[in-house]
């Protein structure tokens, strides 16, 4: 996607930097640097897209063909593979997909709501310890979620909540990065004048937040939702540690299990590859649907004020 939009007008003068450096040397030079940039971007695109192509092609192969035919030669077994995948332990895969949708959908929604509230409060209210809270959040942005998985497990084990849907949902709700983004966005998108006007009109804080702030932050919240949705969708470590019952697994942990059957069992490669392909389709669809919000992004709010 990036390549097409950037490489589309190649003969036209490009951005300021390359124009400034290359224009006065010779007329042939800019073209060559254009070609170099294009090739670089094409390489980047190939680097990103080849694995996807591999998954697409590999999922059309039968188990015997997967390791014996040419890597990029497609075959005709896609539907058979999907049928095999669906037949695995009475359609357990589809249950994993539903679980993932639940974890990612509900988790991202709740997380967005919490982020919006916290970010708004941090941006627009003054209260003691505000900067301390914000600094802790910043530190939280720097701590990878993987590190927290074990402590979170120990905490939830105390509450006897491991191996339940809550074990994955609860930790997903707090996202320091989401709160951080939301704070920046609230500061830029919600003018103080509007809030004051609302207060003068007698609106309480809850009403201000629901009726005025949320709509104004909409574009930014979509960004946060998408971030968090993708993060939970791809999350592996947390559910892997939390869940013992494979009926609660999200698709990432489920597919991992199919690959690790122990030495005495063959790994179910074709099934896993097909499952991986199907599991990225909802993400692709979601991005295509929400792309326009995504593009509006942070800049929109800044311009309006």
């Amino acid at each position: 996607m990036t390549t097409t939009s950037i490489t589309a007008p190649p003969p036209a003068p490009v951005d300021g930097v390359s124009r400034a450096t290359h224009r006065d040397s010779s007329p042939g030079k800019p073209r060559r640097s254009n070609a170099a940039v294009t090739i670089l971007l094409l390489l980047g695109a190939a680097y990103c897209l080849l694995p996807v192509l591999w998954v697409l092609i590999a999922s059309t192969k039968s188990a015997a063909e997967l390791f014996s035919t040419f890597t990029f030669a497609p075959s005709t077994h896609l539907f058979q593979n999907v049928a095999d995948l669906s037949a695995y332990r009475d359609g357990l895969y589809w249950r994993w997909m539903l679980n993932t949708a639940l974890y990612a959908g509900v988790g991202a929604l709740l997380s967005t709501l919490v982020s919006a509230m916290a970010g708004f409060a941090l941006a627009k209210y003054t209260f003691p310890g505000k900067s301390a809270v914000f600094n802790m959040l910043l530190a939280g942005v720097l701590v990878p979620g993987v590190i927290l998985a074990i402590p979170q497990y120990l905490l939830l084990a105390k509450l006897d909540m491991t191996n339940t849907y809550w074990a994955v949902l609860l930790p997903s709700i707090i996202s320091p990065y989401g709160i951080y983004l939301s704070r920046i966005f609230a500061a830029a998108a919600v003018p103080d004048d509007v809030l004051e006007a609302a207060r003068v009109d007698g609106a309480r804080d809850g009403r201000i937040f629901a009726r005025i702030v949320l709509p104004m932050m909409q574009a930014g919240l979509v960004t946060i939702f998408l971030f968090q949705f993708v993060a939970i969708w791809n999350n592996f470590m947390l559910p892997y540690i939390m869940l013992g019952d494979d009926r609660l697994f999200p698709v990432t942990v489920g597919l991992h299990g199919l690959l690790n059957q122990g030495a005495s069992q063959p790994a179910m490669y074709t099934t896993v590859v097909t499952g991986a392909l199907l599991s990225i389709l909802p993400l692709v669809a979601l991005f295509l649907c929400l792309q326009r919000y995504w593009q509006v992004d942070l800049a929109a709010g800044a311009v309006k004020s």
Partner: protein
Amino acid sequence: MRSKTAAKALATVAAAMLLATGCSGSSTEASGSGGSDEPVKLTYWTWTPNMDQVVAKWNEQNPDVQVTVNKQDGGDAAVTKLLTAIKAGSGAPDIMQAEYQAVPTLVAADALADISEELDGDVADKFPESAWEAVTLGSDAVYGVPQDSGPMMFFYRADLFEQYGIEVPTTWDEYAEAARKIKAADPSKFLGTFSAADPGWFTGLSQQVGASWWGVDGDTWQVDVDSEATKKVASYWGGLVEEGVIDNTPMYTPEWNAALNDGTQVAWLGAVWGPGVLEGNAESTKGKWKVAPLPNWDAATPANGNWGGSATSVTSQSKHPEAATEFITWLNTDPEAVKLLAGTANVYPAATDARANALTEPPAFFADQPDFYDIAAEAAEAANPFTYGPNVNVAYSAYKDAFGKAAEAKSAAEFPKAVEAVQETTVEDMQNSGFNVEG
């Protein structure tokens, strides 16, 4: 027998660890007969395929003890998860599949319940001594009931052996000769590979020579990885890898699968569960494989080793050790259950007599070889004793590191050095964990 006191030594360390946390064994107090109206509910962590179908039989016959199977990732992953749950104090299942090499680790972490009280006296007689010792660690305690064993076997492509005029090797010298012959006939082909990614495979081969990597005397552990026996095996394979007649890439990779399919790997030193792996990875070669006993160092005294094998254990967090023990006894000794284990869950049961009755047909992938399970039974019989220690995971990852480098370098001199590296890492780790070690 020097491993008699293994459990005692483990218990000492376990007790020391538990003094700090102060949560020893409180879970077993709640053991009841399960009440009369409410059925006892047990969870069972295992990665054996189709185990839920075997368990369904039990649930049907025992409405008052209902077992739920939670399928896990294979091997180490499940062990790590169980240890985390034990540390956390909740979240562990009632019943756990425990590989033999993981039993000492789990006992040291107080993860497994001693079921010697609950167990019927005659259960021990149904298993070969080596399997039973793996769950008792040579003590009076019992930490599970053996489920399956994995005697090593030699799988080879009969069609290619015939094509190159090679006899099935019965000794390791003949194996080396056969490797050279194949290399000479077709430089792209290998008789086998040295897999630095499969420590279980290497311990099996070392076990055949009589190595036992751990041992216990009183409260003191011995670590004996760098014994002459293990070095002999390492040097042998190092020589073949340096010579280039044996491949140096790991097993269970896509490349290895491709090599099994197209005949680049002409044979495989696997174990009794091999047919399932071959069928899954190289279905197109069906009917071309045959099985033979593992080559020997001395043809006059055949010996063998195990690759894999596991027990079914009751965890220390289970509130129903009695019901759980009853279930795992049924699962691994009842003729009907063992038949299901062998037929549906594809394991090679450890219970000797029940196994003989259950396995009358060769596996489908070896349909032409009616004596498949006779060879397997002989292989199981010939297995040498082997004692595992409480930090097998550390030794195994040291193996992967050290032998990974040695195999990559294709240098025969590096292989015995890798053995020493494993020894050193293992001893150091045990000392750091507070075990008495000499070695």
